[in-house]
């Protein structure tokens, strides 16, 4: 096996002080970037590109990929600890991670997240090393019809996020979809619903919306319940999940890693969609689906594994086709070119040692991430043990700087506050807020590909392409299955 020889060469190459130092530094910085809301993995990588300039290409690449890998995990930490997704994809970790924290069990959630993220990441790396060629070829087959059907499939996840009231879940999704149409229409350049505000030309910032709806909305709501504040001063346990608990959810972790990797390969889909789909599937195979949303450990693990799995996935089209699979890999392309390397299949011939060194470093990065994450958990638990009266203003201040630093713009801060108030009102009246985000993510994917498909042909295209048809059937099943199931359960309950 040639590939094993190359890989072992790669391991030899990085087994010296500088590359290993780069891995540790990258993972540390990555976790930090992930933890800070407003700094996405892409921005973290971008911020370090100038620093990597003076290094030799392999070390630079190791540093940047380690940041990327760890940032995706780092985002789940704040999602679990303070209901503030540090990165967009970590939003799914809030669904069950934050309830666990509220129950005084942040250690379990944080521990499950780091374990699942490590497994997911290593899974993605293995796929990257061994299966990147066929996967990349398959990803190219994704045309507008397939993307549209994928978006529709993604949207059907709302029915499992609805927690009973699915009319409200649909309304929340539609709010997100409608908010998503604000900004420049990609097909005509026309500015829709911007009302002359130049900052809205690109629509509402995704990160300010995320921070507002989740962190701010949650704080505003929980302040209303004065008695809760008093009673929540309970013992916060730093206990990590036991091996048995992780072993019980092994299937969820592996399945989510696979979903994360595969969805990560498809350019334009990415970690967030992967995490949503993995969560939905984890709920479907769970023996206790009713626990989801209330602190199910498999929910936390599904999100972590899928998010990390998508890293290896997103590197597949980057290295085999020279096409970025995610925002962060788009920055990596820029970094590679700064070093005079052109990403693409020729890199395997001209600079095989760099590629395999990079592969080897990914495995190290995940090992380091596991150790640092495990140790770091104690620190996060200390922070969330602060009294809430102190913690809440602190989270608001973090929300400010997080939404500000996306674009160095005060407009984003104001829109974050606006989304906070929206999130508060929605939560107050039992509208779920996660579907708003789902609408914001998938609206663009659905609209542009729908219109593109129609530009290319007629509407039959959605049903004649097998992948597209398959995804639409899946969407149909996934939409109505939970609704029908809950109706049946309700009937049984009434009898």
């Amino acid at each position, binding site marked *: 096996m040639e590939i094993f020889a190359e890989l072992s060469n790669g391991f030899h190459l990085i087994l010296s002080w500088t590359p290993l130092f780069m891995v540790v530094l990258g993972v540390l910085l990555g976790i930090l970037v992930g933890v800070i809301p407003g700094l996405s993995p892409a921005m973290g990588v971008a911020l370090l590109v100038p620093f990597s300039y003076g290094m030799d290409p392999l070390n630079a690449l190791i540093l940047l990929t380690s940041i990327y890998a760890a940032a995706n995990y780092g985002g789940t930490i704040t999602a679990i600890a303070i209901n503030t997704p540090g990165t967009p994809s970590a939003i799914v970790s809030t669904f069950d991670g934050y309830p666990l924290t509220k129950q005084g069990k942040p250690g379990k959630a944080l521990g499950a997240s780091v374990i699942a993220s490590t497994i997911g990441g290593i899974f993605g790396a293995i796929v990257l090393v061994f299966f990147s060629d066929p996967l990349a070829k398959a990803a190219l087959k994704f045309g507008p019809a397939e993307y549209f059907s994928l978006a529709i499939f993604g949207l059907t996840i709302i029915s499992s996020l609805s927690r009973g009231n699915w009319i409200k879940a649909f309304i929340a999704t539609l709010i997100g979809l409608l908010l998503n149409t604000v900004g420049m229409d990609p097909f005509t350049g026309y500015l829709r619903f911007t009302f002359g505000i*130049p900052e809205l030309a690109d629509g509402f910032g995704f990160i300010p919306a995320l921070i507002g709806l989740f962190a701010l909305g949650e704080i505003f709501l929980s302040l209303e319940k004065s008695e809760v504040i008093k009673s929540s001063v309970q013992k916060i346990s730093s206990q990590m999940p036991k091996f048995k608990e992780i072993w019980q959810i092994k299937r969820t972790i592996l399945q989510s890693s696979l979903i994360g990797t595969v969805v990560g390969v498809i350019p334009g889909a990415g970690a967030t969609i992967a995490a949503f789909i993995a969560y939905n599937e984890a709920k479907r195979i769970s023996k206790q689906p009713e626990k989801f949303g209330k602190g199910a450990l498999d929910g936390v693990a599904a999100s972590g594994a899928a998010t990390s799995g998508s890293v290896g996935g997103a590197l597949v089209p980057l290295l085999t086709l020279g096409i970025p699979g995610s925002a962060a890999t788009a920055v990596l392309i820029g970094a590679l070119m700064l070093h005079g390397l052109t990403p693409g299949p020729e890199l395997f011939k001209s600079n095989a040692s760099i590629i395999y060194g990079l592969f080897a470093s990914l495995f190290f990065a995940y090992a380091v991430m596991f150790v640092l994450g495990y140790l770091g958990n104690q620190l996060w638990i200390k922070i969330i043990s*602060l009294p809430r009266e102190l913690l809440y203003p602190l989270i608001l201040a973090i929300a400010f700087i997080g939404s500000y630093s996306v674009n160095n713009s005060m407009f984003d801060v104001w829109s974050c506050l606006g989304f906070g108030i929206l999130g508060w009102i929605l939560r107050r009246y039992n509208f779920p807020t996660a579907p708003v985000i789902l609408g914001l993510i998938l609206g663009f994917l659905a609209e542009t590909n729908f219109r593109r498909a129609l530009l290319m042909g007629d509407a039959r295209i959605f049903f004649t392409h097998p992948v597209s048809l398959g995804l639409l059937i899946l969407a149909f099943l996934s939409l109505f299955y939970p609704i029908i199931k809950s109706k049946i359960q309700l009937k049984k309950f009434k009898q």
Partner: protein
Amino acid sequence: MQVLMRRLSITIVLLSLLMGMNSLWAKFPEKPITILVHSKPGSAIDITSRQISNIARKYCPVPILVENKSGGSGVIAMRTALDRKPDGYTVLAATKSFISTILLTKSGISMDDFYFLACMVVDPEALITNRNSNVRTLDDIIRDAKAKKGKQRWLGPLVGGVDHLMAVKTWEVLGIKAEWIPYEGGSDALAALMGKHGAVYVGNPVDILGRPELMLAVVAAPERLPHFPDTPTFLEKGYPLKSEVLWRGYAVKKGTNTEAIEYLTELFRKVSQDSAWLRFVHSTAAQPVFYNHPQFTRMVNHDQKSAIKYLQKAGILKNTETGKQTNYLQWAAPLVLFYFLIIVLAYFLKRQWVNGDTVIAGFLIILGLFLYRVTFNFPTGKLASTVGPASIPRLWIYGLWFFNVWLIVSAIKHPESEKSKRGKVVRSLRLIILMIIYVGVIKYLGYYLSTFLFLISGAYLLNYRKHALIWGVAFSYILFSYAVFYKILQVPLPQMIWLH
């Protein structure tokens, strides 16, 4: 004596003025120069600017920083450059795409607002095809286009952008018709070309580097490119497209003092001759150039004329366009009034009807009405013929109406499902107002002071009284944000207004 005094004072004033002028004139640059980039890190113009900032270190005593101000296809960066002082410390990285942006977005910005310092890179436009498809060369493209009768797919970024205009121009010159399929970005369109979802991609030679499946069909250069000796030019095929280029250059706000302009022009000239710079540009298959202000301005004006012509030809820019301003308030006000009327009416008819669900659902229905009215203004031009910009928003509005009516009906049918378990709204409102004040005063007090005050007043507002802990946490957070955000991540946090 008095005269002497007066003379003396006049002399002193003049002298001090002169000295002041002197210090203004003599010492450019005395602080770091910032290059504003309109796209996210990693883009071509970003990498180019970072290269320049790196190479310019040799020739310039102050650091040159790159600041990314992405958004609105460049509107945000241009706006930022115009809002800052014309002192030469803010340099805008400009590309040909700005012309389309300015023409399409009606942002009130004009190319004449800028003084074009130097054009550094020109990148010839090229038609790119998939090596494994049966449309590979220029002749294939023309034959295939005629066979498909206008259904041949050309892939590329945004409608009205540089590449689209190049396509429209090419269609005119070649005498063919084709369909422009826009993608979110160049790399998405390239992936689509690799997946054979279209026939031709309009781009630059750099796009095929490292992608062996792709090939250059033809380039719009005066002669064959040294990197690609096998690729023919339009000219030798008999079509007059001899120098269509995408340029990257640098500009400052008009009215910048001459000393700064001279210094910066000279700096760019030095960089343009640096061997590291030449190596970099050649590695991207583009051409390093140095066009000074008059040459650069001529090129910009020429491109702008051509862009207007082809935008009109493509049906994007209508020559009868009147900047009609619609007063949205005119529709919004009656709708809001109507909404409140309904609520009041419902309240008197039956109190249970007015609850959280119905009020929210009613609001969303009214909001839908308003937005629906706004969609009437959306264009229905040639490009909107299949599914226009209004159709998808309308679809979501229909959905919003449907489910909200349903929600109202079910809320009225089962009023008991509305649980009254809510606590004190005042607590939340107080913190929201404090947050609004915090964000509002940051402009005046600067980030550090206002954040410090916010953290402390927030904790006291929530009835926390452990003074030492409050002040300690607030202080350490300020230190943390200074170190991490300002120092390491170089986020330009808002400063106190009086410091400027």
